[in-house]
């Protein structure tokens, strides 16, 4: 008879951001252990609030399934002598399985014939399996930070208060630190402080609901959002959307109860980002706007307890915010007394990275690099704005406001630049050089910010790689992966045409004084190569999301120095690869590439000599190729890679006939080498778009 299983860890308030990952760990370990023990079960659900992490498994079988396994022993040769009698080896094998030698069989594997035996493994009772599985699950959660408590040596996110481990109506003996599992859980800390005895796992969600706890994370999130939106509507306002804040607040409460409060209207002259940040980062309040998205002097705070008199707690919420806004105003006013330009010098006292120097040095480097990029991308007209904005771009790091709210870097730079009378374009560029701040964020809208942003990130990438601190595994303290992706997104988004490798060279040239004493590990690639390889990796990951990996590799294999062109080649090739007649085409290309790869290196370089052709098919192919080459050249220069590919694929019949009728590996050396040179030229034509040999196609493989 199948029973349900409930595992609940009750703890003192667990940090909001820990809850979802912890539930995933708990569920994963439990499910893995059940699968390993062949214990069948139904649906697995998780529940989580600040005070509990729980898993409910429906319809758990009473025992694991029995299985019969085949166990391989020594090879048949070793196990039986010439007469076919079992040897010592066979006897020992049988003995180890507690079988008689007669019960042994033989199994043929790829490596030869072996003695084998069929062994039956009984499934263990569910209680035993689950007791181990639950022990592993509660000890197997990996928290970002964990702690010991009381006099126990176990660690958890916060002290564990109770455990529930119920299989049907049976309590299972699980222990964590100083807590033993039972059937007692607890509801809302204040609204339902008493113990709740659970009869059966299936009662869990309803019992908690009754005790004022919405245990299901998704349900609680939906309820929070519904209530918050309703409160906003009732106040004649709109919620400023913030998914991250919704997620966080969901896991700060067991029962969301929003209240609408207000702050003094005079504070609305502070930059909206400052107001939103003040409300959000310390207080976790939601901001409200009017129908046009303009901030209102109102907020929504979400309480964990529906208090008796809302006005009383509201007074508290408002008082705290008023104090915070007063502080914010103090910083805003103080900061504006010193022009941004006067702060630049102070950056010389802020270390960016030990070996790579201060922020002032970094600013000087990337200002020069941004100027270089403005020239390279044909934006020389932006040079003055780039120069000024780059100079001021990091000056807000030494303001009081950014000291208090690091998230406001760039925003405050923009505001203080405006207040100091800098041109709007400069102020905007200061803000936009940080864009995009994440995968979902917008790109810079103007060139100056985009170019400075590129230069700043290239300087970080090249500098950090050059001192041997490239990201490895999960460790990426300078967020270089994100920086690299941002560079790619900006270049593509703004359509900048320039040589990436030349920009990397320039960045490294500017960094050179800092790198004079850096010793590279033996066998380590030069920084330039490492950085470009890093770009290749990011491009593969980024483009691999929407295109076939082999197609991406085929395109990257012939270079990505001009990122915009590389992207266009990829798009054109992806379309072509999607067509059904591509496979035979790929086969033909692959033949060319294979021969060039195998034979090309033995052949001295030089031009094909059309005079040396003897057979019609090669003459025909040469004529077709010459025409195609000229056209491909025109198309490539016009970025029309689809047409270039069309020209190239048009060569297929001639290529096929060539291979059918012409013997490339002719006896005559001159003749042979001429043909190989010819194929090399054809290969080079293909390479203007992609390395077709990287494309995986069944027919291509057969060729």
């Amino acid at each position, binding site marked *: 008879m199948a029973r349900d299983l409930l595992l609940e860890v009750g703890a003192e308030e667990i940090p909001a951001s820990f809850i979802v990952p912890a539930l995933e760990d708990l569920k994963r370990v439990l499910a893995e252990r059940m699968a390993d023990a062949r214990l069948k079960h139904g649906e697995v659900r998780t529940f989580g609030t600040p005070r509990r992490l729980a898993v409910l498994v429906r319809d758990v079988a009473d025992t694991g399934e029995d299985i019969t396994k085949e166990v391989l022993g020594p090879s048949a040769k070793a196990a039986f002598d010439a007469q076919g009698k079992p040897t010592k080896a066979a006897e020992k094998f049988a003995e180890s399985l507690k079988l008689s030698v007669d019960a042994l069989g033989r199994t043929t594997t790829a490596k030869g014939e072996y003695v084998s035996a069929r062994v039956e493994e009984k499934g263990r009772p569910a209680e035993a399996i689950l007791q181990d599985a639950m022990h592993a699950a509660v000890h197997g959660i990996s928290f970002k930070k964990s702690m010991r408590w009381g006099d*126990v040596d176990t660690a958890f996110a916060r*002290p564990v208060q109770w455990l529930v481990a119920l299989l049907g109506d049976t309590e299972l003996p699980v222990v964590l630190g*100083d*807590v033993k599992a039972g059937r007692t859980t607890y509801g809302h800390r204040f609204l339902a402080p008493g113990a709740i005895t659970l009869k059966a796992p299936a009662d869990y969600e309803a019992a908690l609901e009754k005790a004022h706890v919405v245990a299901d994370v998704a349900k609680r999130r939906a309820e929070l959002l519904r209530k918050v939106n309703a409160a906003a509507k009732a106040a004649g306002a709109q919620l400023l959307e913030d998914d991250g804040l919704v997620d966080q607040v969901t896991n700060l409460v067991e029962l969301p109860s929003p209240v609408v409060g207000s702050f003094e209207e005079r504070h609305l002259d502070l930059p909206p980002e400052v107001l939103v940040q003040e409300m959000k980062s310390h207080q976790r309040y939601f901001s409200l706007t009017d129908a046009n998205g303009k901030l209102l002097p109102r907020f929504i705070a979400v309480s*964990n307890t529906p208090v008796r008199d809302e006005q009383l707690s509201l007074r508290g919420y408002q008082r705290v915010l008023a104090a915070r806004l007063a502080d914010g105003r103090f910083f805003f006013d103080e900061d504006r007394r010193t022009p941004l330009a006067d702060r630049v010098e102070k950056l010389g006292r802020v270390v960016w990275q030990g070996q790579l120097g201060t922020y002032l040095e970094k600013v000087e480097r990337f200002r020069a690099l941004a100027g270089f990029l403005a020239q390279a991308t044909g934006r020389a007209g932006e040079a003055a704005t780039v120069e000024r904005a780059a100079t001021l771009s990091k000056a807000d790091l030494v303001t009081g406001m950014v000291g208090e709210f690091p998230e406001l870097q760039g925003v405050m730079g923009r505001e203080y630049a405006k207040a100091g009378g800098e041109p709007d374009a400069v102020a905007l560029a200061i803000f936009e050089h940080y864009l995009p701040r994440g995968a979902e964020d917008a790109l810079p809208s103007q060139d100056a910010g985009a170019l400075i942003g590129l230069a700043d990130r290239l300087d970080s990438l090249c500098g950090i790689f050059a001192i041997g601190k490239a990201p490895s595994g999960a460790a990426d303290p300078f967020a270089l992966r994100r920086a690299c992706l941002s560079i790619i997104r900006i270049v593509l988004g703004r359509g900048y045409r320039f040589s990436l490798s030349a920009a990397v060279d320039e960045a490294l040239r500017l960094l050179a004084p800092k790198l004079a004493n850096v010793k590279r590990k033996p066998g380590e690639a030069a920084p330039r190569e490492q950085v470009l390889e890093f770009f290749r990796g990011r491009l593969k990951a980024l483009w691999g999301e929407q295109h076939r990996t082999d197609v991406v590799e085929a395109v990257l294999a012939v270079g990505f120095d001009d990122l915009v062109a590389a992207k266009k080649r990829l798009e054109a090739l992806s379309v072509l690869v999607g067509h059904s007649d591509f496979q035979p085409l790929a086969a033909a290309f692959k033949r060319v590439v294979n021969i060039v790869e195998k034979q090309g290196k033995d052949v001295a370089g030089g031009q094909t000599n059309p005079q040396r052709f003897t057979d019609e098919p090669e003459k025909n192919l040469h004529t077709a190729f010459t025409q195609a080459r000229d056209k491909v050249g025109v198309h490539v220069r016009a970025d029309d890679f689809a047409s270039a590919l069309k020209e190239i694929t048009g060569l297929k019949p001639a290529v096929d006939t060539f291979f059918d009728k012409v013997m490339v590996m002719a006896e005559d050396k001159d003749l042979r080498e001429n043909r190989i040179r010819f194929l090399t030229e054809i290969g080079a034509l293909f390479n203007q778009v992609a390395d077709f040999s990287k494309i995986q196609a069944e027919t291509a493989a057969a060729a």
Partner: protein
Amino acid sequence: MYFQDLILTLQKHWADQGCIVTQSYDTEVGAGTMAPYTFLRALGPEPWNVAYVQPSRRPSDGRFGENPNRLFQHHQFQVILKPAPKNVQELYLESLRKVGMDPLEHDIRFVEDDWESPTLGAWGLGWEVWCDGMEVTQFTYFQQCGGFDCRPVSAELTYGLERLIMNLQNVENVYDIEWVKGVKYREVFHANEVEMSKYALHESDPQMLFTLFDAYEKECKRLIERHLPMPAYDYALKCSHTFNLLDARGAISVTERANFIKRVRDNARLCAEGYLQMRERLGYPLTKTPWTVGEQPPVLEGKPASDYWKTVQLNKPVEKKEKTEVARGA
């Protein structure tokens, strides 16, 4: 409730649980944590349950008596419970009820907050406790102090007395707090705030303070060598306060800052070690008392964390200890 009654109520509550009520430590500190009643007593296997008010000086928070919330000197009500009782949250919430903060009338919440003191080589995990969005208490489970593991773990409750009473008296300005009937915080401390802020931010003599810092540091090290960790710790505290004064004056550059903090921390570590050696020499006398506060559940898996001290070697000569200590603290 008057300010004074808040203090008396908290004292009575924790005394009733079995805490000893000590008086404020008598040298300048930036927080109740720095008093030896917390920093040193959190170390080692002995039980320790204490409550005290600690005037806490934060020179860089001085606002000349003009800011309604920030003060050069505020008051913390500090509670240390070691080992942390199983029901410490309940005991704490009971104290809030007693001062008139009913959790059914106010939104009381435990919001994640990791505490770390680079100058003390100490860290812990816990929460800031919110009452209607305002932080009223810092609640920390100590994990390390002076670079040593805290086994067993102490619970530290630091009530911000001014904030609590502002909420209870419903006043917007700290100087409007009624200390006792007819006497406001303004009358008691405003002039002090003005003068102390002027001193810390404008008038202090950095040259003298640098000289004092060096002298205090040297004296601390000398006393450690003389096996006198208690007076040595006083000098470590004086170093810390002198550093805070220099910092408030803007006399320490960004690059020098880290180095000063390290110098304070190194001394705090030596004091922690000296204190542990002293307690070990004395045979950890408090372990022989039946002193507990709150619920003490049995350890069900593994060994008690406090057994750790049975295997730690603390009795080597001080000169050699420095190296082993660094290795262990690293």
